[in-house]
C-alpha cells in the first residue's frame, strides 16, 4: 500500500511523507521537529548520545520499550512504532522523571552532552525491569559513552531512580501506549519520496516476491550495518526492502531437537533462548554491541553481511547450524559455513533472502565454549573469537567443531585443529597439537584491532583456556564478567 510512514512521536500520531527514505530518525528529530535534546555524538551507533525509546507491540500484544540509536535508524523503520525522546519524560508540569532527577541530584552529568542518551537508556530500563545491580547497569549502559564522569555517578543514579516516587504521568502514558500503537496501520508499507522507495512487506511470501522482483534492492533488517553506510558513505539506494514487519521472520521455534531462529530475530530477542541452551553463547551475545544495537540488530543481518568479525556466525557454525534461503518461491538450505565463500562474497543470489538459521539443540556431552577477545570488554568488535563445540566421551573427543572469527576473510572452521582433536584423548598434549595445527588453518591479517601475530597466539591460547575450563573447573580463566544479561 502506497502511503506515508505512520508513527507515534512523543504521544502524538505523525505521518511522514516528505523525507527521503534514508533520512535518519536523528536528523529528522533535530532538523524537522526541533527536538534537539537528542544528540549526535558519532552517527554510527557507538556512543549512545542519540538514544531514544522505541516502543512496539510484541508478538504477544504486550508493550515492549527498548533503547535505540536514532542516528542510524532510517525513518521508515518507525512505521507502526512509537518513539519517545528525552523531551517527553518530564511531567507536563515540569517535574522531572525519576531517572532525570536521580541523574541531576547524583552529579550524573558534567558536560551534559551524553546525558540525554543515558537518561533514555535508563528510562527504557526503568519501564521494563526492576532496580539494576551495578553489573546489570553495566549491561544496560554499555552502549552509552561518557567522557566526563567516569560513569560511577551514572550507575548510582540508575539505581537511585528507584528510590524516588513513581512518576504517575509516565505510568499512565505507558498504559495508554498499546491503544495508541493499535491505531497505526498493520499493513505493508510502500513508501516513496525523492524518487526512492522503501518497501516493508508483512508476509514472507510478499517479502520473497519483492526481493526477487527487485534484485538490486537493499535488504534491510536492523540497519545496524546499513545505517552506517547511509551516514558514513552516503549510501542512497533506489529501493530498500525491510524485513522487520514480516512476522514469520521474527519467530524463534524449537521442534525436533532443532532451534530455528528467524532471520529478523534481534539479538535482544534471541539472547535468553541461546543462553538457556548454551550459557557461553548467551554471554557472547551480551558482549555484542550495546543494548541499543542489540534491540535492532538481527541474527540474519549478522550472517548475511558476510563479515569475518561478526559474532554470531562462529558460534552457530560450531553448533553445526544450517542456513535457510529463499529466492521467490525457491527455497534451499545449506550449512552455515558454506554460505561464506570468501571475503565479501557469500552464497546468496541477488534477490535471494536469508529466512532463518537452524541449530541442533545440544545433545549429550556437547558443550559450547565461546571466547570473544576485543580491545575493550564491552561494545567492541571482535579481534579474535573462538567458538568450540566439543562432544566428549570417556575422556576422548568424539566430535569437535572449532570456528573462529577474525582469523580469516570469513568466519571459518579450523579443520586441521579439529582433526588434531577428533578421536583423541582430551589432554593438554592434544590441545597443544590442535593449537599448533591452527597455523595450517589460518594466516590472519594485521589491522588496527590486532596484529596477525597476536591473533594467532590468542587463537591458540583460547583452545587452552577452553581446555582448562572443561577439565579444571576450579581455575580462574576469565576476568570476572562485568555485565549481566542482555
Amino acid at each position, binding site marked *: 500500500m502506497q502511503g506515508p510512514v505512520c508513527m507515534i512521536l512523543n504521544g502524538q500520531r505523525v505521518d511522514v511523507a516528505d523525507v527521503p527514505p534514508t533520512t535518519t530518525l536523528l536528523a529528522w528529530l533535530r532538523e524537522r521537529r526541533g527536538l534537539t535534546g537528542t544528540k549526535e*555524538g558519532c552517527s554510527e551507533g557507538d556512543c549512545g548520545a542519540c538514544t531514544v525509546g522505541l516502543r512496539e507491540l510484541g508478538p504477544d500484544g504486550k508493550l515492549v520499550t527498548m533503547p535505540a540509536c536514532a542516528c542510524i535508524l532510517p525513518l521508515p523503520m518507525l512505521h507502526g512504532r512509537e518513539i519517545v525522546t528525552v523531551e517527553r519524560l518530564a511531567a507536563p508540569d515540569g517535574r522531572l522523571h525519576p531517572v532525570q532527577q536521580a541523574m541531576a541530584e547524583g552529579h550524573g552529568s558534567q558536560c551534559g552532552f551524553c546525558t540525554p542518551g543515558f537518561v533514555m537508556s535508563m528510562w527504557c530500563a526503568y519501564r521494563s525491569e526492576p532496580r539494576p545491580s551495578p553489573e546489570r547497569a553495566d549491561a544496560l549502559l554499555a552502549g552509552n559513552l561518557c567522557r566526563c564522569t567516569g560513569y560511577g555517578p551514572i550507575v548510582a543514579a540508575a539505581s537511585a531512580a528507584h528510590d524516588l516516587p513513581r512518576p504517575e504521568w509516565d505510568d499512565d502514558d505507558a498504559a495508554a501506549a498499546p491503544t495508541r500503537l493499535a491505531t497505526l496501520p498493520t499493513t505493508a508499507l510502500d513508501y516513496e519520496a525523492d524518487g526512492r522507495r522503501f518497501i516493508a512487506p508483512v508476509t514472507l511470501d510478499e517479502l520473497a516476491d519483492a526481493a526477487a522482483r527487485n534484485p538490486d534492492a537493499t535488504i534491510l533488517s536492523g540497519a545496524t550495518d546499513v545505517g552506517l553506510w547511509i551516514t558514513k558513505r552516503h549510501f542512497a539506494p533506489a529501493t530498500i526492502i525491510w524485513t522487520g514487519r514480516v512476522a514469520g521472520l521474527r519467530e524463534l521455534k524449537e521442534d525436533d531437537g532443532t532451534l530455528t531462529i528467524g532471520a529478523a530475530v534481534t539479538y535482544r530477542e534471541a539472547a535468553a533462548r541461546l543462553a538457556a541452551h548454551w550459557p557461553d553463547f548467551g554471554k557472547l551475545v551480551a558482549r555484542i554491541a550495546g543494548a541499543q544495537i542489540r534491540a535492532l540488530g538481527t541474527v540474519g543481518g549478522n550472517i548475511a553481511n558476510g563479515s569475518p568479525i561478526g559474532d554470531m556466525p562462529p558460534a552457530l557454525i560450531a553448533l553445526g547450524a544450517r542456513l535457510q534461503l529463499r529466492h521467490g518461491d525457491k527455497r534451499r538450505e545449506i550449512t552455515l559455513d558454506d554460505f561464506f565463500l570468501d571475503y565479501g562474497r557469500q552464497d546468496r543470489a541477488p534477490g535471494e533472502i536469508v529466512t532463518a538459521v537452524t541449530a541442533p539443540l545440544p545433545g549429550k556431552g556437547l558443550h559450547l565454549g565461546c571466547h570473544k577477545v576485543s580491545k575493550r570488554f564491552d561494545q567492541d568488535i571482535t579481534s579474535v573469537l573462538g567458538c568450540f563445540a566439543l562432544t566428549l566421551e570417556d575422556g576422548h573427543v568424539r566430535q569437535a567443531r572449532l570456528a573462529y572469527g577474525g582469523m580469516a576473510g570469513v568466519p571459518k572452521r579450523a579443520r586441521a585443529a579439529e582433526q588434531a582433536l577428533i578421536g583423541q584423548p582430551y589432554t593438554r598434549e592434544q590441545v597443544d597439537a590442535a593449537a599448533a595445527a591452527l597455523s595450517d588453518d589460518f594466516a590472519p591479517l594485521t589491522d588496527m584491532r590486532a596484529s596477525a601475530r597476536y591473533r594467532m597466539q590468542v587463537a591458540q591460547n583460547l583452545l587452552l583456556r577452553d581446555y582448562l575450563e572443561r577439565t579444571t573447573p576450579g581455575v580462574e580463566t576469565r576476568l570476572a564478567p562485568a555485565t549481566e544479561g542482555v
Partner: protein
Amino acid sequence: MDAPDHAPPVRDGVHVPRRHDSAEKHVAGRAIYADDAPEPPGLLHGAFGLATIAHGRITALDLDPVRAAPGVVAVLSADDVPGENDTGPVARDEVFLAASEAAQSGDVHFHGQPLFLVAAESREAARRAARLAQVSYAEEPAVLSIAQAMEAGSRFGTPYRMARPDAEGRDAPQAIEGAPMRLSGRVEIGGQEHFYLEGQVAMALPGEDGDLHILSSNQHPSECQLIVAHLLGLSAHAVTVEVRRMGGGFGGKETQGNQTAAAAALIAHCTGRPAKLRLDRDDDIVTTGKRHDFVIDWEAGFDATGRIHGICVTQMARCGWSLDLSNAICDRAMFHADNCYYLPAVEIVSHRLRTNTVSNTAFRGFGGPQGMVGIERAMDEIAFALGLDPLAVRRANFYDPPDAGGGRSTTPYHMEVEDCVIAEIVDDLAARTGYEARRGEIRAANASSPVIKRGIALTPVKFGISFTTSFLNQAGALVHIYRDGSVMLNHGGTEMGQGLFIKVAQVAASELGLDLDRVKITATRTDKVPNTSATAASSGSDMNGMAVRDACAKLKARLRGFAARHWKVAEAEVEFLANRVRVGRKTIAWEALIEAAYLARVSLSATGFYATPKIHWDRDAARGRPFYYFAYGAAVTEAAIDTLTGESRILRVDILHDVGRSLNPAVDLGQIEGGFVQGTGWLTSEELWWDDTGRLRTHAPSTYKIPACSDRPRVLNMALWEKGMNRELTIRRSKAVGEPPLMLAISALHALSDAVAAAGDYRRYPGLEAPATPERILAAVERVRDG
C-alpha cells in the same frame, strides 16, 4: 587580600557541594549546545574536502564536480581567503585551506588535511559534494613515526635542554657515573584522542558592516576571535565569539575549535549568509589534533635504597605537521619529568618532532602526564632491579616536605617546591588502603592462579598550576547588579562540563553575600570580557574566581561607601550579611540597598581582573618559577590480567587527592573520578593506529575505544584530603583540579605491569608500554616468561 573564609552563610555559597548549574537542563535535553541553537533562515552548511595523501604537492585540482553537485552554493579554496590563510595559534605555520584552485597547487602535510571548503544548502549535500573533487598529487615520502622523525632530524627548533647539577656541582652524567648503581630504559607512550562527546561545531551569523557573531564550541573564544579576524582581514572588534557551553573539551577545543569556526566564518563572509560547520565524528578525529605520543629514554644512577643520584631523560614527542601548542606542551612534559621526586643532578632534553600526521595539541595534563609516566617507569624499574617495593623507592625520592630544610626541594628548573605534601598523602593513603598487606596477599594468590594474575601499585602526583607561558595567567570578569538586586555574572572562562560556572557563581554569591539563585551565569562572549586566556591548565576557577572576586570587591566598596554616606554611618559600620546589609543598627534588605544605590546614581556594574602573582620564567636559562603552586594526589590501583589473551580489568582504586579548601566538593570529586577514568583509557584501551600510508585507521568509536561503563573500577574509593589547604592566596584557598587527577591513572599502568611481572614469577621486568592493550599485555607476558 582579606581572610579567605570570611563569608556570610548564604545558600549555596563556596565549599557547598552544589550540583552543576545546568544539571536539570542536561537531563531534560534543554541545555543548548552550539548545534542546538535555532537555525536562521538561509543557513548554509559547510564541509571540508580532505587530502588523501600524507605528504606531497597538489599538481592539479578540479573543483567543478563539487560545484555542480546538488545543493552546493560555494566552493572555497585558499584563493577565497581575504586575510591570512592560517589558523596557527602561536606560530603562523598552519595553513587553513591547503589548496589554491587558481594556482592549481598546494602543499599537503598530513592525510586528512583540509584542502578546500564546500558550502551547501544542507549538511548532507555539503558532505557528499566534498568527496567529488578531482585532485592529483605528487607524493613525497612521509615522516610518520617518532623513530622516523628522529632519524630524519625532522623537528621544530633545536632540542630544548633543562639541567641542574647537584650540590657538589656534578652534572647528571657525572652523578650517574659516580652512583653505586646504574640503569637505563625506554618507555613508549601512545597519544590520545579527546573524544569529547560533542564534536567540533560552529555557526557564524553575519551582521551589519560585515561583522560576524560566532557560536562556537571553543575553550578559547578570544583566540578564535583573533584568528577569524586575521583570516578575514577584519579587526577583532568586528568579530564576536560566544560560547555558552561545550559538550566536553579536555584541551581538544583549546585551539582545535578554531578551524571549524574559521570555516563557518569564511562561508558567512563570502556568501553573506549564516553558515554552520559541524564535523562528522570521523572527520573530527582525522582532522583535529590529539595528545602527543612520546618515547622517553632515561638513564639513572642510584644507590641501594633506590635513591637517585643523577638522571638523564630524553623526551621525544610527535608534534605532527604544525607547531600548534607543542612547545608549551613539551615544556610541561619536562616540568613534570620529576613528578614528586627530587633529582639531585638532572638533565632533561626534549625533541619536538615534526611529522606528517595531524598536529598534536593540548589534552588534559598538557604533556605533564607523559613526563610523569617517564619518571614513574624509572622508579618502578629501579625498584624491580633492587628487589624493593616500588613504593619504597618512590618514598626514598620524594621532595622534602614544607620547611624541612633538608635541601631536597629544588626542581630541575630551579623552582623551590614549598608545598610538598605528597609524603603525608601517600602515608595516609597506604595506611587507609592496607597497601602493603594487600601487596603480599596478591603475590601469594598469584602463585596459585595460573591464568589470571593480579597486580597492585601506588603512584603519586604533583602537578604544577599556572600557564607556563606567564602572560596567559590573567583573567577578566564582568559583574552587573540589576535594579531588582539580581546579579549577572560573566567572565572569560568557558564551561565544558568541569563545573567552572557553578564554582565561580558560588564565589560571587559568597563575595556579595547573596544566595546562589540570585546570581545568573551567562555565556562567555568576547564582547563582554575581552582578551581572555584559554580555559585550560586547570586554571579556570583559580583565575576567573579571583577576577570575579575583584569585581565583587569593587561593587561592595561602592555600595559600602554609598550606604555609609546615605545612612550617615562610618564605613566600618556597613556589614554585608546574607542577602542583607547591616548599616549601623539597621538591617537593610539587599534589594532595598540596590534600589537606593541606583537612585543615588551609583554604578552597579564592575569589571574585575586578576593576574597570578609570583610567577616568572626565563626560558633561555630554563630557570624560574613557572608555577604558582602544586596540586598533589595519590592512587592505589589493583588490576588483573588474563595471561592467555592479554585482556585486563581494573578491580579496585583508592584515591586521596588534595584540592585545598574545595570550592565545591561534588564538582571536585567528579573531576577526580572522570579524570582518573579518562587516564586509564589513555593508558589501556585507547590506541591510535596509523597505517603505513599515514592514514589514521582508528577514526571512530568503533575502532577507538574509550572506557565504557563496565571499564570503570569495580570498587572506587575517593577522598579529598582533609588537611588540604593552599599555602598560596588562591580563591578561598582552593586548588585547581581539572588536570591533576588524570595522572592518578598511572597507578593503573603500574598495577597491570605488576600483574604481568607475576606471570613470569617476578623474575623479569615487564617493560609494559602504553596503551596497555590486550596485545601489549600479552606481548609483555611472553617477554617475562621467555626469560
